């Protein structure tokens, strides 16, 4: 029989438990590294040096972090409404199509209009594609977990069709759109910082990172400081109380899914407008799914999401460097390490809450 739920001080809940989870995950990952005959300390050092040890490495890390912030926030907003949005990939795909069409069709406009419009188009595409499962759940009772997964496949197939048949580069065998106009793309960070006297090597990091930071603040304000956020949290925590309070859970379900989809659209902004400068196949690269882990680890709070996104950024960038330097540690190994962290931070959270609680108790006694 289980005892009463474990309550921890806030700092322990938000800081200590995830830290202990990550530490445990690193220990397990270290054992795997030992298992294939490499030194875990050396691997960790390579991973950290590759991701944080140079300006270039750090910039790559922050580029990955940008993607994870967008997809993590998308999942987090849906969480607060009690919804499990697994459709980040599909929503980002549709957002990418919308952004690409805006960039291609509105190219005559000046950049100062075109870029914001394309970003809004991405948000609108993601929002629309998030709204559909929200609407299906609110009016037909179709569970968003099922519908978002199915819509991911539809979006991916739609992207192939469009790139091959409709908006592909004429005369090219590659399933990709023509390059966007020079004034339709987001400024790379090394160009953005050059006037300030900061010289960075050329990396994919671009001004979408600043958009991601703005989204962190905006989501925090939305969830914890706005009337809509109050309604979203009420619906997520207790739909009956929401109905009692005059909040329509159906409406909130649709609104929250639309906001969630719009945030997932940020992934398309970063990848298509910031890095590739065109729309390519599979540009979502699984970031939508990792966003689930980011939101879980960050406990749905924007600060937590930022930290978790940074951690996954380090893993992605450092892991790439690691597999480059140590051929025995393949990219798949790095995926295993990421998986272990997700497992420990998400699924085994209760385990470490107990450990932390007894640790705190012991601390008080001593």
């Amino acid at each position: 029989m289980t005892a009463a739920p474990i309550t921890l001080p806030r700092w322990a809940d938000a800081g200590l438990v995830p830290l202990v989870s990550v530490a445990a995950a690193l220990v397990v990952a270290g054992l795997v590294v030992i298992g294939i005959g490499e030194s875990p300390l050396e691997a960790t050092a390579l991973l950290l040096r590759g991701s944080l040890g140079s300006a270039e490495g750090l910039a790559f890390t922050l580029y990955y972090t940008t993607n994870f912030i967008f997809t993590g926030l998308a999942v987090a907003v849906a969480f607060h409404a009690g919804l499990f949005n697994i459709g980040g990939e599909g929503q980002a795909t549709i957002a990418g199509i919308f952004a690409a069409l805006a960039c291609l069709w509105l190219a005559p406009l000046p950049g100062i209009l075109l870029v914001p419009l394309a970003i809004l188009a991405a948000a609108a595409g993601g929002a629309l594609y998030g709204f559909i499962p929200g609407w299906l759940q609110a009016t037909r009772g179709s569970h968003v977990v099922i519908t978002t997964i199915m819509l991911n496949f539809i979006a991916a197939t739609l992207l192939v069709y469009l790139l091959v048949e409709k908006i592909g580069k004429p005369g090219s065998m590659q399933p990709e759109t023509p390059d966007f106009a020079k004034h339709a793309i987001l400024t790379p960070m090394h160009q953005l910082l050059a006037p300030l006297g900061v010289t960075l090597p050329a990396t994919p990091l671009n001004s979408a990172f600043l958009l991601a930071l703005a989204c962190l603040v905006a989501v925090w304000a939305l969830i914890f400081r706005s009337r809509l956020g109050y309604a979203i949290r009420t619906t997520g925590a207790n739909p009956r109380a929401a109905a009692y309070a005059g909040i329509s859970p159906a409406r909130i379900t649709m609104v929250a899914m639309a906001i969630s989809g719009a945030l997932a659209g940020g992934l398309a902004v970063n990848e298509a407008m910031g890095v590739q400068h065109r729309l390519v196949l599979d540009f979502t690269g699984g970031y939508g799914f990792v966003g689930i882990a980011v939101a879980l680890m960050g406990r749905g709070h924007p600060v937590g999401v930022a930290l978790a996104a940074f951690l996954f950024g380090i893993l992605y960038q450092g892991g790439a460097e690691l597999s480059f330097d140590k051929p025995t540690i393949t990219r798949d190994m790095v995926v295993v390490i990421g998986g272990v962290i997700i497992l420990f931070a998400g699924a085994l959270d209760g385990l470490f809450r107990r450990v932390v609680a007894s640790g705190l108790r012991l601390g008080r006694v001593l």
Partner: protein
Amino acid sequence: MTDAPAPAIELVGISKRFGAVQANRDVSLSVAAGSIHGIVGENGAGKSTLMSILYGFYEADSGEIRIGGTPRAIRSSGDAIAAGIGMVHQHFMLVETLSVVENVVLGAEGGAFLKGGLANARAELARLSQDYGLVIDPDAIVGELSVGLQQRVEILKSLYRGADILILDEPTAVLTPPEADQLFVLLRALKRQGKTVILITHKLREIMDVTDAVSVMRRGEMVAHVRTSQTSPPELAEAMVGRRVLLRVEKEPRQRGAPVLEAVGISVTDARGLALLSEASLTLHAGEIVGIAGVAGNGQSELLDVLAGLTAPSRGVIRLNGQILNAADRKPARLRELGLMHIPEDRQKAGLVTAFTAAENAILGYQHEAAFGAGPFLSPRAIAAHAREAFAAYDVRPPDPALKTANFSGGNQQKIVLAREIERAPKVLLVGQPTRGVDIGAIEFIHRRLIALRDAGVAILLVSVELEEVMALSDRILCMCGGRITGERAAEATDERDLGLLMAGVTERAA
């Protein structure tokens, strides 16, 4: 050792602290073998903590537990069961899809194969039924049993595991009055067979009815041990609260005003086409309390939900201040604007978001009001200031707006709801189970507030499973049975027997 048998349970100097809260402070308790021992106290007095220590959920910081005279270390519920202690929780620990006998053997299957254990259990159940008059079909599916019968299954489970000492935590909170009476018959039978029963409750009538001795807790300490025959409800109430308590509601007769809320021919059918409410009509006047008496589940909840705009009636008309409410008006937010406030029956499931802070709950339903922030935003400072003011006026303890609502006692949670709904000067107040799970001090407070509102001209509809409460507060009483209103009585012209007949569906007596 003297001739007297050792007490079944002795707790000596038990202390337990949770963070800043001293839940139990040097508590000692002695329960004579073969007796029914009551433990009373307000919510948060430490009764549940003490019993959780006895049952091994928590470990005491200090103190000793002796069972039958021998000190025992009880570190888990397994230890407690081995020591012959059984516990019946307020919320049953049953698997609803399994049969009675399967639930009884759960965790005591006696081997990898069920067959032997089930056969044993069946024989044992037959014997227990015989001994204690616990009649129950061993093959019935638990989820299909009434709450009272489910409770019997819980008791049988403990007895099957060889419990000599049975702890019941607020056992009557979920029972109808007749079911509660049957429970007491059973408890007396257990006592005759030499079992020891510990009864945790805050209903003093039950203590007086069934216990041999009673211990009173207040703020984590034992403040009194008395023989039940040598005490009285006012004395116990005073010991619990620490001051004199008015057990009777003082109420002056008052002239009622104009009709405010009229409901005519309200019917509600569920998805399967069953009538939950048939042709219910009632009129609420300004300055009166109309009570609805009925055994739980006879349409009272549906009536409240319809009037509060949470359920659409399949037939019927509702008038508020003479205006017929159309479908757009029958929405909770719109009804609040029109002055109809609602204190829901189940505050934790409908009236509060227990994961929110108290301050956030104090604006639930009013989150759109301009006072709480500019434009689309909410100001935490404004919300906290509002809560501090409301909590001071309604004596919510602790008056901490930042505390999570789940950490408040039932009575204080109810006061948060009450403050929220009353402070905006309602014209009509719908009240469901205002004092369910609420301690005596808070009951007195809530009753006085409701009477004061009535005196100020508010029309109040009161739904409660506590017949005493309905009779004490109401000016008029409507009885419900099977979704129908079976009769109306003036409160001063009726008694429990008369209402009981109406509640049982025996309509107007032949003259």
